[in-house]
């Protein structure tokens, strides 16, 4: 399989942009990525657009506004992992020799507040079982039970990511917070307080991939996996599961594949961006990705390893807790951050000497996407 390199990245800042259309945000991100890659009209042979709420022909509108159509343009949806799915398809098209250069982007304008997903059936909504933060809370509670995680650890994740995000001009929240402030924010679903949950918002991110020589930033692996049945608290949100705690979660499936494909392991990583839809989800991701042993997430956090300056900074961008979550754009937002980290472009939030990076998203479906990048 051929080498795939990241030729350029671009972002439209994540936040609330009532006067900017989905198309306009996409244009900003794609144009910036193409400029970095020095790729113009006719310079790429396919485009993939990740979006969940972008509507019919979302990707076409962006490329139409740019005056760059004609190639296949496909919109892909895989929940929080939509951008990861798009990246995987693009990388395959290049590594297989089908294309030389592919543009991947994600765009989203999320509805405000709790997302009314088409995911749930009407009876689930009527019975109060479409309570998205409730599921997050149940997962958090199980993690507290199995891994010694406390509410103080949950607050500490928020403090860490908001501190990181304060240094990121593309983040929505750019102020630091204290643990006390986090724990004083409104209780949404015990143990989760409002500031422990990311905000759905708006934004765009773009990545240009091309067949490469291995110089620059290389896409070592991009894997998408869905869940195996059996886990009652899976992101697939079943109404029942088995009394079986050994069901391998999709994040672990994807990470195993990505490590195998790239010939790397958790010990090789210098920097990670992972799914922090809520503070507990970040800690669970540590365990599911193999950044620590099962049950070891609280200890890893406490060690300071995952804070900027530590051994393996996680979410140096500030994570979704600082950036907010524009569903179709969030996975590519992580990739943009990591490419910039690997290029040593991140200034005050730079992970010094970072050479190997991993991004992780997981969400409705359930889908998990893992991307490994190397310089």
């Amino acid at each position, binding site marked *: 399989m051929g080498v795939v390199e990241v030729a350029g990245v671009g972002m439209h800042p994540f936040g609330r942009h009532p006067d900017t259309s989905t198309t306009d945000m996409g244009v900003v991100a794609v144009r910036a990525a193409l400029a970095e890659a020095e790729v113009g009209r006719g310079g790429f042979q396919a485009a993939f657009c990740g979006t969940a709420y972008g509507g019919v022909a979302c990707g076409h509108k962006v490329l139409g506004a740019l005056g760059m159509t004609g190639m296949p343009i496909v919109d892909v949806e895989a929940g929080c992992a939509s951008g990861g799915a798009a990246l995987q398809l693009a990388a395959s098209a290049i590594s297989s020799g089908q294309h030389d250069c592919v543009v991947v982007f994600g765009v989203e304008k999320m509805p405000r507040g*709790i*997302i*009314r*997903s088409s995911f*749930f*059936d*009407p*009876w689930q*909504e*009527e*019975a*109060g*079982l*479409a*309570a*998205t*933060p*409730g599921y997050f*809370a*149940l997962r958090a*509670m*199980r993690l507290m*039970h199995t891994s010694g995680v406390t509410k103080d650890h949950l607050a500490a994740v928020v403090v860490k990511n908001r501190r990181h995000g304060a240094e990121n001009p593309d983040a929505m929240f750019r102020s630091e917070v204290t643990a006390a402030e986090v724990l004083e924010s*409104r*209780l*949404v*679903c*015990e*143990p*989760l307080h409002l500031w422990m949950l990311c905000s759905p918002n708006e934004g765009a991110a773009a990545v240009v991939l091309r067949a490469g020589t291995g110089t620059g930033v290389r896409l070592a692996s991009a894997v998408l996996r869905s869940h195996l*049945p*059996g886990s*009652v*608290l899976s992101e697939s949100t*079943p*109404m*029942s*599961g*088995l*009394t079986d705690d050994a069901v391998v979660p999709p994040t672990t499936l994807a990470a195993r594949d990505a490590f195998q494909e790239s010939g790397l392991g958790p010990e090789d990583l210098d920097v990670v961006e992972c799914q922090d839809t809520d503070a507990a989800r970040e800690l669970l991701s540590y365990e599911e990705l193999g950044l620590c042993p099962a049950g070891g997430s609280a200890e890893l956090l406490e060690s300071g390893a995952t804070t900027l300056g530590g051994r393996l900074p996680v979410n140096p961008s500030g994570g979704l807790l600082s950036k907010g979550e524009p569903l179709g754009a969030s996975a590519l937002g992580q990739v943009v951050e990591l490419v910039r980290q690997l290029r040593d472009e991140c200034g005050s939030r730079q992970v010094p000497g970072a050479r190997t990076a991993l991004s992780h998203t997981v969400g409705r479906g359930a889908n998990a996407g893992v991307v490994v990048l190397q310089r």
Partner: protein
Amino acid sequence: MPVRHGLFVEGPPPALVCGRCGTCAKVHFPRALLCPYCSADTVDEVHVRGPGTLWAFTAVTAPPPGYAGDVPYGFGVVELPEGVRVVARITESDPAALSLDESMELVVVALHTDELGRSVVTYAFAPGS
């Protein structure tokens, strides 16, 4: 009236309408035509009554989309002896009054009154006697 037909029987005693696979013997809820674990179409209907034990719990403090009942309400997962864990409302809405592994009884609770004046009910679990 039930929030959906085929989810549970009202009893007394109430029971959850589950599926048990004739091929792999695993139990799932709500009952499906095909086994979600092995794809077999040999699914039998089984009525699961409990009691079970509380496996995870919280309380929902703001009404989620499409929900017209009261808040806060308890929300959790109950493990049943048939080898199945079920997502359910919990009658106790104060998490501090609940504890892991405590015994839970299956009950039927009112959600809200529909536009025709009928009480819409659903399954839930209550801390046991």
